[in-house]
């Protein structure tokens, strides 16, 4: 190696990351070259300067925070995936005749859906049967044989086309693609499909106004959403996720309201306790206390987790009002 090459290796030499042969060659050169020795000293001084740079320390606390946030994001991701699948399953179930594949046709079509938009040409779904009992599903004019052609006009957007088979001799092709068509739905919030679409919006919509309206619609219906039965798990999970992780406090507040009107189970209790212990918005913490107080009172419940959380807040919350509310609630619940 020549002088220039050796000089370029000096930073790596200082890091001890040269091969034994390279290091030996550098040492031999250093013994004979004053300029490189000076360069090495200068590099050491530079290393000292940059090594003193303070850094964010990865403490157990920081790691745990990162893990908790990841856990919430993973739950959100899992629910998103599951809600998505359920919507596909449910909606395709309703509209199957509209999407039967043309068995004798040249193309085999697999249909995907896009967020917020589910299949079909708008004009096919604009009328309702009876409000409150079913979705708008007027599809009788559809002809399965023309299903393939229907995808190629109107408002349908196509994406992700993949060829499965292509036979130039016979002209037969087989492929899949995603067909995304705007859809208009009118139905009652008690309808399971409507609820699933709204759950999907709660978890996936980027627009806080849409999320708020969807949560609000579920909350407004109160107990009638479930009719005293257990809530749909996908809907409940979407509300829990919104309660625990939505960036908009208005959405979280409505999610809490909706959840408190459902049968109070372990999942809901944990979500409300999560808000009480972790939500940065003091109004949300107070709402959680009120919710726990009311539920505990109605159900004559004396739950140790609830009591402990209230005690903790009574002593350590940053906000005076939250501490006071926790104290009052604790007295009420303990009676």
């Amino acid at each position, binding site marked *: 190696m020549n002088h220039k090459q050796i000089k*370029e*290796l000096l*930073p*790596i030499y200082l*890091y001890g*990351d040269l091969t034994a042969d390279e290091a030996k060659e550098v040492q031999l050169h250093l013994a004979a070259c004053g300029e490189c020795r000076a360069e090495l000293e*200068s*590099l050491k*001084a*530079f*290393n*000292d*300067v*940059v*090594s*003193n*740079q*303070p*850094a*964010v*320390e*990865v403490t157990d606390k*920081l*790691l745990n*925070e*990162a*893990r908790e*946030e*990841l*856990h919430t*994001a*993973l*739950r959100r*991701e*899992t629910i998103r*995936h599951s809600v998505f699948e359920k919507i596909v399953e449910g909606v395709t179930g309703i509209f199957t005749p509209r999407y039967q594949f043309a068995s004798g046709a040249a193309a085999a079509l697999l249909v995907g859906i896009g967020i917020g938009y589910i299949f079909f040409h708008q004009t096919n779904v604009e009328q309702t049967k009876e409000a409150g009992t079913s979705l708008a599903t007027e599809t009788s004019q559809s002809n399965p044989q023309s299903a393939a052609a229907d995808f190629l006009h109107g408002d349908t957007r196509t994406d992700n086309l993949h060829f499965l088979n292509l036979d130039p001799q016979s002209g037969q092709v087989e492929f899949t693609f995603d067909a995304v068509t705007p859809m208009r739905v009118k139905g009652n919030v008690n309808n399971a499909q409507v609820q699933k679409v709204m759950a999907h919006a709660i978890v996936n919509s980027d627009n806080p106004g849409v999320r708020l309206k969807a949560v609000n619609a579920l909350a407004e219906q109160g107990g009638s959403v479930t009719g005293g039965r257990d809530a749909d798990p996908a809907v409940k999970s979407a509300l829990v996720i919104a309660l625990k992780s939505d960036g908009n406090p208005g959405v979280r507040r409505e999610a809490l309201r909706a959840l408190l009107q459902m049968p109070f189970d372990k999942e809901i209790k944990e979500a409300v306790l999560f808000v009480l212990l972790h939500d940065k918005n003091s109004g949300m913490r107070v709402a959680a206390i009120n919710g726990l107080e009311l539920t505990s009172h109605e159900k004559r419940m004396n739950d140790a987790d609830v009591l402990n959380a209230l005690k903790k807040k009574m002593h350590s919350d940053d906000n005076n009002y939250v501490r006071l509310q926790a104290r009052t609630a604790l007295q009420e619940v303990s009676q």
Partner: protein
Amino acid sequence: MAPHEIELIQKARGGDVGAFEALVYQYDKQVLTIAARYVNSSDDAKDIYQEVFLRVYKGLKKFQLRSEFSTWIFRITTNVCLSYHSRRKRHAHVSLDQEQDENDGETSHRDEIVSEEHSPHRQTENAELSLRVEEAMNVLSPQQKLIFTLKHYQGYKLNEIASMLECSEGTVKKQLFTAVRRLRNQLKEFA
């Protein structure tokens, strides 16, 4: 790859979040450390951490069991770090208030660190040096900054860095040399 790791991967592929967490908790501190050193902010580091593991979770079905799981995670980590840098740049105009807050946060963090020093004069000197080093680091390209951080602050071997960045060792050496040269130019009054 260890059999228990393969088992966890297979469970995680089936949507078992617990298995996924058990799998990645073996490496997540390293990921967070790389991110924290690279962005020098705990909030940004947590963002990177989350994005890395969401990408890992979503990409798990495509992961080939032939290669090392840890190598794959660290590749994703370096990719997210590099793209995070450009995203931050792109969104830098979004909120001046936020930027101000962040700067305030960083300043207070630095203050916290230098408060351990005894002399007020020394504190000022250290704070200024720290700021200058940070500015100098930001003159580097994202790749140079990442390579320098991985090598200088975290002591990864050149071949490990090359594997993370999917490039040759020669490229790493060259980028490291350039990074050192540029940093020295920026900080010549201190060293």
